[in-house]
């Protein structure tokens, strides 16, 4: 069988290549597992998402009801729905951790600029997955989160109102918005993410693992089977943590969205949007006669672009050398996100 496949696909060459692939061993090796865990969580998302699709019916009269049906009537429906929600949160968390560890290890430096950039696009896609999936149960929290989130899109100078109409499918958040975000969540984003993921993984294979600020000829371990087996143990642990979370902390469905109800007190977005939410909350209404939220959104976009382009503005520092500016920027980003998230969580 192997010979048959080998003759047609060159399996032995692939196995030979896998045997020679190595992973650097140093004090930061633990961070190399974060990307693999993120990949595992993405696979789980696709699988649980496909299962939910069997019962989910999009529409203002059916979305909430079908999710309620899944969680209350379908065998193990509560488990898969809860698993999908918890996995989504862990997925974003691990992507955050993966991105920041790559940032602080300076693994984005030449020749890995494209790996970093494709990774950043994947990070944005993960947030888009979270945002689009959040509305699908059509509950009260999701409705207002989508109203605020899409209104922010409308603030983009020049093309904002046009983009807003495209995303919402009209002026307001309605059933048309639900249909569009559903299409985005189950077709457009998975398609783009798969392509980006293949590219990202291909770049990692072509460039090899970065040694960070460690010497290039340091200690290594074979990827296959040493690293992969360790990776898989971590995947198993992650799966167990997810099972515990899904069983003991089932995801709530909340109240059905009412387009004519006031936003309820204590409304907050998901934790990964909390820092932007809190920042927008504390920015004054007007800054030098420019609307405050516009200033905030422009600053966030600017920060995102700088983050995306870090391999280029950090490029002048020779590899292996410390760059204080980059470290300070990274540290500021971490502290800002943490402080705003905690503040947003505790504020009324």
């Amino acid at each position, binding site marked *: 069988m192997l010979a048959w496949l080998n003759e047609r696909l060159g399996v032995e060459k692939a196995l030979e290549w896998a045997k020679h692939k190595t992973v650097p061993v140093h004090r930061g090796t633990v961070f190399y597992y974060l990307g693999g865990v993120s990949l595992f969580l993405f696979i789980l998302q696709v699988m649980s998402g496909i299962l939910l699709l069997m019962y989910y019916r999009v529409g203002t009269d059916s979305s909430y009801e079908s999710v309620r049906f899944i969680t209350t009537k379908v065998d193990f429906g509560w488990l898969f729905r809860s698993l999908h929600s918890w996995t989504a949160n862990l997925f974003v968390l691990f992507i955050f951790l993966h991105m920041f560890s790559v940032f602080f290890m300076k693994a984005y430096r030449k020749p890995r600029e494209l790996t970093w950039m494709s990774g950043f696009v994947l990070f944005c896609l993960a947030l888009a997955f979270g945002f689009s999936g959040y509305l699908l149960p059509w509950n009260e929290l999701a409705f207002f989160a989508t109203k605020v989130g899409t209104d922010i899109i409308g603030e983009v100078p020049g093309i904002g109102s046009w983009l807003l109409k495209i995303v919402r499918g009209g002026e307001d958040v309605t059933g048309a918005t639900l249909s569009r975000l559903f299409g985005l969540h189950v077709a457009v984003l998975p398609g783009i993410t798969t392509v980006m993921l293949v590219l990202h993984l291909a770049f990692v294979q072509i460039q090899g693992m970065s040694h960070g600020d460690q010497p290039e000829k340091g200690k290594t371990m074979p990827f296959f089977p040493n690293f992969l087996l360790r990776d898989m143990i971590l995947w198993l642990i992650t799966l167990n943590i997810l099972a515990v979370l899904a069983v003991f902390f089932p995801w709530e469905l909340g109240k059905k969205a009412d387009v004519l109800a*006031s936003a309820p007190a204590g409304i907050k977005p998901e934790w990964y949007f909390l820092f932007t939410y809190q920042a927008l909350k504390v920015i004054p*209404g*007007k800054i030098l006669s420019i609307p405050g939220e516009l200033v905030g959104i422009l600053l966030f976009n600017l920060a995102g672009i700088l983050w995306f382009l870090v391999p280029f503005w950090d490029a002048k520092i020779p590899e292996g050398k410390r760059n204080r500016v980059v470290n300070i920027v990274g540290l500021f980003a971490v502290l800002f996100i943490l402080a705003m998230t905690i503040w947003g969580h505790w504020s009324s």
Partner: protein
Amino acid sequence: MRILFGGGIAGALAAMIYPAIKFLIPPEEPEAEPDILKVGRKEDFPAGTSKIFKFGRTPVILIHSKASGLLALSATCTHLDCLVQYRDDMGAIWCACHNGKYDLSGKNISGPPPRPLTPFAVKVIRDEIFIAKV
């Protein structure tokens, strides 16, 4: 030749992308904006309560304040589009999304809202409440 070829490709791409973008923009659905909207009887709105109605496309909040009586304002927060609520305990209109506050005339008094809420007229005719554009 190169220009012709490049132009042809650009034209073909534009011919594919333009209809797709136009397709994504929903057609305008003109909704008749009423001049006046009957919302119910006076006894349905005791002092200290509020309710949101659709005035054409615009959500409007009808408030029965103990101090100011019946008043109506656009219910959409001018900050980021959430629907506001009347807080009798604050004597103000409050947006739960980003903690924006308006006084009962609709003026933005604290938090991030950049503009006041649009006022609507309230008319009571034989105990029936009507909301109208100012």
